[in-house]
């Protein structure tokens, strides 16, 4: 098997299954097979999907720096799948809030979406992810051309909105949020550094 085949027939199925583990654990814990969701299962599900949404946008944004540093170009082939898993976890986080937490009570949902800034921020991230997921096929990419690149730069915005959303709902202890903020800064900082370097090289 050449690298391309390895990615396609071994790497991708393996990574796909791995990405499903956090979701499978939520289901397993809900039925008390793999563990438990604790006294407040709705909140636990909300927190787990949310934090995995943040982790997955970080993992997705790590693909490009890792590829450049290691020279492993095949990493790029996982980027779409990782991005779609980000969307999946954020969507589950959103649906849990909508259905289990708010019980589809429209007045409360509308109030939260219009009056609570941290929820608006999270919702904006979800809309950006939705737009990227909907245009993630090869066909769409071809048809959209340069506009596709522009749209998919919003992955950076999703990272920023995600960490901001996480930060803003914390009552007091921001130590975990700091970790994500630092990782995100490194991932975005790398890109700024890379662009400067390119410009300098081009300038001569």
């Amino acid at each position, binding site marked *: 098997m050449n690298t391309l085949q390895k990615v396609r027939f071994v790497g991708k199925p393996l990574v796909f299954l791995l990405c499903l583990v956090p979701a499978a654990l939520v289901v397993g814990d809900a039925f008390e097979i793999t563990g438990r969701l604790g006294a407040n299962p709705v*909140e636990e599900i909300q927190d787990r999907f949310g934090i995995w949404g943040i982790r997955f946008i970080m993992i997705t944004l790590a693909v490009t720096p890792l590829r450049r540093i290691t020279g492993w170009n095949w990493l790029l082939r996982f980027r779409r799948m990782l991005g779609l898993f980000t969307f999946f976890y954020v969507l589950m986080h959103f649906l849990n809030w909508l259905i289990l937490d708010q019980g589809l009570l429209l007045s*409360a949902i509308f109030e939260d979406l219009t009056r609570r800034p941290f929820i608006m921020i999270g919702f904006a991230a979800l809309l950006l992810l939705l737009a990227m997921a909907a245009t993630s096929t090869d066909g769409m990419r071809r048809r959209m051309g340069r506009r596709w690149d522009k749209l998919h730069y919003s992955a950076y915005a999703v990272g920023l909105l995600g960490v901001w959303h996480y930060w803003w709902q914390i009552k007091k202890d921001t130590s975990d949020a700091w970790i994500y903020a630092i990782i995100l800064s490194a991932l975005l900082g790398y890109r700024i550094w890379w662009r400067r370097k390119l410009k300098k090289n081009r300038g001569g």
Partner: protein
Amino acid sequence: MLIQKPADIRPSEITSKENYLNRRDFIRAGSIAGASVLAGPALGAIVPDQQRARLADVARSEFSTIEAPNDYEDVTTYNNFYEFGTGKDDPHQNAQDFDPRPWSITVAGHAEKTGTFHFEDFIRLFDLEERIYRMRCVEAWSMVIPWVGISLADVVKHYQPTSKARYVAFETLHDPVRMPGQRRRVLDWPYREGLTIAEAMNPLPILAVGVYGETMPNQNGAPIRLVVPWKYGFKGIKSIVRINFVEKQPQTSWNMAAAREYGFYANVNPEVDHPRWSQARERRIGAGLFAARQPTLMFNGYGEQVAHLYSGLDLRKNY
């Protein structure tokens, strides 16, 4: 000679809700037969220093709700007690080695009687009562908890605050060795809370020394904690070492941390939202994955007993 080591409490020995409720029926039946005994002279509260020891001579209270209490496990594994960590499960995880003895409580400030008392001596002057109260957390979840405690009003009366005493201030133990959460400055330690004298003299607040008819678990604020059922849970200061009668409104921990979000009064109020979330509805712990949130009641449903305390006070400003 065979020396048997006493076994630790096994999970199988934990009182199930069914047994517990049966026990209540049993007490109820007994209290009819032995009404004269229960009405007799009080012996004073005795609180053993073992974990999960049964409390004796616990009277029932007319203030108890008839709602079904939460499971013992919910009450003791899901709560906030930042002295043992900021996660909901942290107190349960990290408070197991905490030893709430020896314990002393200092009563100070504008009162006829003041001093430092051993916990056992402090508690002995009062009678134990069970109070099954709704508990509404500021984070919009709630439980029903069968506390055992002594009436705060009785305690206040005993120490005879002078006319200068307008507030009662409480403090938690400050000991980062025994309370590992205090090694990080998440809050400005020690934890502080306070009530107006009128609030403290209301018949509802108690100094709780137990739950489910047993001694207070470490993670819930052993050996003694405040319970004020019409206020958000953070008013219920745990592991109290100091009670101070003061003239000025005392500083309170969450108000010091974020004044815009947590006021001194912190009365449960569905009409005044937390700046970041709605307080109109609450999630009842133990109601299940698919249960809807339920409406939050003004003063957590205790308006009949406490609304008069706030007549003329703008509860939007004094949140």
